[in-house]
């Protein structure tokens, strides 16, 4: 494998896994449910996107033919992440989960 492809794959892998880690950190340390929702919907989705792009480059190089089917995973995640976030946010608002003090405009009071 040429060196520059190896570097490219490594860069995408590191970016992807760092974003996934940031999403998990957000899920772990942010104060209330609504702020926690932001980590997984954005950071984790992009993190998987990075890993998948790395995999695409790797297999395209290894099999000597364009390998595009990993794009399906990214496409699927980009379509579904907002939907599940929306449903969970709706459920949380219905159960009136507490929001942190400094939140403005609480919809249920």
């Amino acid at each position, binding site marked *: 494998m040429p*060196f520059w492809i*190896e*570097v490219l*794959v*490594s860069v995408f*892998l*590191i970016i*992807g*896994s*760092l974003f*996934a*880690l940031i*999403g*998990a*950190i957000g*899920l*772990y340390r942010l104060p209330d*449910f609504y702020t*926690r*929702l932001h*980590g*997984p919907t954005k950071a*984790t*989705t992009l*993190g*998987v996107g990075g*890993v*998948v792009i*790395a*995999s695409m480059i*790797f*297999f395209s190089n*290894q*099999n000597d033919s364009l*390998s595009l*089917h*990993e794009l*399906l*995973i990214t496409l*699927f*995640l980009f379509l*579904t992440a907002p*939907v*599940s976030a929306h*449903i*969970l946010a*709706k*459920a*949380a608002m*219905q*159960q009136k*989960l507490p929001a942190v003090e400094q939140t403005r405009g609480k919809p249920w009071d």
Partner: protein
Amino acid sequence: MLAYVIPLCMAVLGVAAVLNVVRLVQGPDMPDRVLALDTLYINALALIVLFGIWLASDLFFEAALLIAVMGFVSTVAVGKHLLHGDIID
């Protein structure tokens, strides 16, 4: 170079999965746990794709896609259950 980068990335994703599990166990309310489980699904998917690169095998793609589909469907089902107390309406 990849021989060093891939285990490193696996470790990073492993830490992320551990943080998700902490939130899953701790999470004060039900939506928190569901969100943690959903994130855990996506992290597991990334780990599987990474494992596929490590073994240089194309076979793991289908597993990753299936996990993505299962994770989405189960999250939506549990979310619907939380909303209405009922899955099919």
